[in-house]
């Protein structure tokens, strides 16, 4: 200040407050970023073991529940087919060959369908895992609280890890043909011819209209 006069800041307190608010806003934003990154890291850690081995185990668990039902029904169907063919005297006929091959095809197809079902269950579980992660992430952005989000992530991940396969029985898997009287008579006829070991082969004749599917 000179002898005549000088300048004095009239708004220094207001400017200081504005500068402090600006510094605080920047610091708060940096802290918010740090908390969000930390929370995202915690979510990532909590869900780190949802990888192929985990999903393979879940698929196997599904199959372990479903496959025994398939095997049981397959054995029952074979037994039933054996009885029906035996009752019709056609165990060694073309009808028997066709029915057995049909049963084997059903067995292969049902097995694949069950595996497909188990794989789709894995897909559904993957969707649940992804949706849970998204929910936790949204909560993190709202709360900006990595501790709470982290503990929730651990809890949710534990729940998802303990997810059990859907225990629904498979229902009727196989259709075994009813071997009718017409087939029986034809089988007898063919059998006689076959036993005579002469004439045209019995084999190669396709099954006729006596076949009826039991549902």
């Amino acid at each position, binding site marked *: 200040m000179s002898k005549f006069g000088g300048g004095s800041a009239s708004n220094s307190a207001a400017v200081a407050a504005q500068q402090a608010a600006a510094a605080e806003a920047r610091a708060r934003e940096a802290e918010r970023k740090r908390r969000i990154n930390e929370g995202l890291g915690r979510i990532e850690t909590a869900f780190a073991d949802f990888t192929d081995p985990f999903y393979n185990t879940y698929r196997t668990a599904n199959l372990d529940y479903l496959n025994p039902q398939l095997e049981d029904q397959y054995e029952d169907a074979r037994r039933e087919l054996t009885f029906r063919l035996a009752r019709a005297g056609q165990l060694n006929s073309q009808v028997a060959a066709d029915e057995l091959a049909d049963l084997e095809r059903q067995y292969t197809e049902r097995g694949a369908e069950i595996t*497909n079902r188990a794989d789709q269950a894995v897909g559904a579980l993957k969707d649940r895992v992804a949706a849970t992660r998204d929910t936790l992430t949204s909560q993190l952005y709202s709360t900006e609280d990595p501790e709470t989000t982290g503990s929730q992530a651990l809890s949710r991940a534990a729940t998802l890890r303990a997810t059990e396969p859907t225990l629904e029985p498979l229902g009727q898997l196989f259709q075994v043909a009813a071997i009718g009287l017409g087939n029986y008579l034809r089988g007898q006829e063919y059998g006689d011819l076959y036993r005579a070991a002469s004439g045209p082969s019995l084999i190669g004749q396709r099954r006729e209209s006596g076949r009826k599917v039991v549902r």
Partner: protein
Amino acid sequence: MCDPLTIAGLALSAASTIGTGIAQNRVAGMNRRAQEENVRYRESMRRAELARQEEQRRQANEAWAQALERSSEPAQTEQLQTEQQRLSDLFNTRPDPVDDQGQIIGDVLLSGQDSDDERTRQAFATSLAEEAGRARDRIEAMATLSAYGPSSGGLDRFVSQNLAESGRDIFRTQSFRRGGLNALNTELAVEPIQYDYRSTGLGEILGAAGSAATFGGSAGVGLPFLPKGWNAWLTQPLFGGSSAMAGAGFGRNYLATPGIGPYWY
């Protein structure tokens, strides 16, 4: 009017005016510098935030580009083929019931079926191979169909997960950009320091003294606190005759000093 007192008064007034002007100019300079400093501060804040925004934007673009690349047509075709193969391997777990030589493998035949007769075995092998082929075709078709959507690594899920993953990254950068802009707004709200001129009083005192001296001198009355002798000397004109301009009521004449003129007023 060219008396010493008037001259001194004018000098004091001039000194007051000049001194005050210099001081005010100095304050104006302080304000200008404060304004410039504030502009520099705001500009640096803006540039810093711009750099942060640019970095976040780059990360978002990168995440988006990666998602697009992972979901590109060649990538989807590759994923579809990989998934088809995986499902095919997963579904085809049963070995064929008939080998390449047409021999039935394992105990597929039912109890009581004649496995010794060649023609019977051949008939069974043919039917089994035929149906196994049909089963294989259906399973392949199922694998293809599932690979497009509902399987665990199906195309639909694959693309959705890719987009969701990049969406998470983009959302994060978006959140940081928004937060950064909020902080910037607070930073830009900082005003420059405002300096106001404060007088010490010296200028006013000098000004008043100058005015008084000028008046006293020009009116020929001197200054009341000075002795009469001093006032007589101080009010004596330095140039010209004895006549001097004087204010009314002081008993002096109003003749202008020759050669100087009345414009001294």
